[in-house]
């Protein structure tokens, strides 16, 4: 009997977590560069409580990992000079506290010193120098052409770095739309700047959350939670009746 209760509880715990993930997806439905996530579940076998002829194992539900859907988000036209969007693979690199972080959110700007920065003021890294990008906006308008090359007065003044990450499942989210990768032991494995990325100026990559899918997920999670509750109630009812019957003898 306890088995049924425990299995039900393990399912409810994962359902609560799924709900948290769905809520985060919906909360970020308008966050540029956000990638939708879902929980991965597995069954974990555990020996039953004393049960001679029953199944040898019961299967508990366990969260196994997090799946991130890196599908391309829609590109929305803004016309702003330093709104950049990547079409296809790759990430922009931002230097935060001496560490390289990666993002798909390309809403950049110039700071008071003329550096190309993200919204928290951290510099965006150049593909070739891996240092900050300096732009003198008074010297003329800036075009960012295919491949991320920054042109001003027909001269190249830098190249916005778009880096290829080999194993995207290793990336850890930091909030602010940023990802970090685990420390690299071999410098040869470090992310490389892509030679010919597709960077569109004046566009923002929108969140790839599909609200209709999230809402149906949410309903499914809610209903299964309710049905597990129902089944816990029945399991409890069963044990109650067993105690009543046994008491009569």
């Amino acid at each position, binding site marked *: 009997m306890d088995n049924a209760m425990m299995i039900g509880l393990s399912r409810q715990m994962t359902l609560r977590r799924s709900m948290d*993930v769905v809520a985060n997806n919906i909360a970020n439905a308008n966050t540029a560069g956000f990638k939708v996530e879902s929980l991965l579940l597995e069954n974990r076998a555990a020996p039953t409580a004393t049960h001679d002829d029953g199944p040898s194992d019961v299967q508990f539900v366990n969260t196994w*990992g997090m799946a991130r859907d890196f599908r391309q988000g829609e590109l929305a036209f803004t016309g702003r000079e330093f709104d950049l969007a990547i079409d296809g693979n790759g990430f922009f690199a931002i230097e935060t506290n001496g560490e390289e972080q990666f993002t798909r959110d390309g809403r950049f700007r110039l700071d008071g010193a003329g550096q190309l920065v993200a919204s928290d003021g951290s510099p965006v890294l150049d593909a070739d120098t891996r240092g900050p990008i300096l732009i003198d906006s008074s010297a003329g308008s800036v075009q960012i052409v295919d491949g991320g090359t920054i042109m001003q007065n027909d001269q190249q003044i830098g190249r916005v770095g778009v880096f290829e990450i080999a194993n995207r499942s290793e990336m850890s*989210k930091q909030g602010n739309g940023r990802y970090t990768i685990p420390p690299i032991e071999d410098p040869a494995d470090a992310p490389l700047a892509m030679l010919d990325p597709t960077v569109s100026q004046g566009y923002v990559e929108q969140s790839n959350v599909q609200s209709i899918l999230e809402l149906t997920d949410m309903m499914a*999670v809610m209903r299964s939670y309710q049905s597990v509750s129902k089944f816990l109630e029945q399991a*409890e009812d069963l044990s109650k009746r067993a105690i009543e019957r046994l008491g009569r003898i």
Partner: protein
Amino acid sequence: MRALTTAATGMQAQQLNVEVISNNLANMNTTGFKRQRAEFQDLLYQNVQQMGAASSDAGTIVPTGVQVGLGVQTASIYRITEQGALSNTGNPFDLAVSGEGYFRVQMPDGSDGYTRAGNFAVSGDGELVTSEGYTVAPGIAIPNGARQIEINVQGQVQVQIDGQTDMQTVGQLELATFFNQAGLEAIGDNLFLETAASGSASLGTPGSPGFGDVRQGFVETSNVNSVSEITSLIQAQRAYEMNARVITASDEMMAASSNLR
């Protein structure tokens, strides 16, 4: 349940979004107004299961961790400084900047303010002032009896005085540019103040490289595009509704648990 607070951050963010959009729409006809955009970022993530953690003694590691996000936050409210359309008024004291640059204005406390709204006027002392009566730097005095006032694209102010045939130059307007215009602090009345984020102002003559032209008889209208504001409003409202649905659903889940007895 995190879902409740996560959805609450989503509702707060969309509420702010609607506030920014409504301010844009309210200022649709404000001279020199630059529209704003609320930018959102995801909040912190809680590591439920660290990626790269050892999953066995044999050195195998967890390939993908479990990170549960805690919602959304406002990264910034960004001012989009693209050029507004110039509208012809015919008034000689209406000036518009076509291109980069702000008019410098002497604030009552002696500091410098900056504005794109060039709907100026002449004070009782003959000085060129903003609609609040603040002097337009570097201070241009229009002599008494001036019949015709010409301000050319380089910002040179010339007048013709009654009884004289030649135009007389009475002043030179200047413009200020910034590395990061979006970093200017808006203080209302179409005025901006310099901040550390904007960088310091570099002053120059209109029409010189890096500075826009001055157009007499025009005002710069606001750069709010009503169609895109309305579509953003629809998006924000729907997103708000969806977050509210998540709160209802989480509430029902909690009710299901508490009804277990």
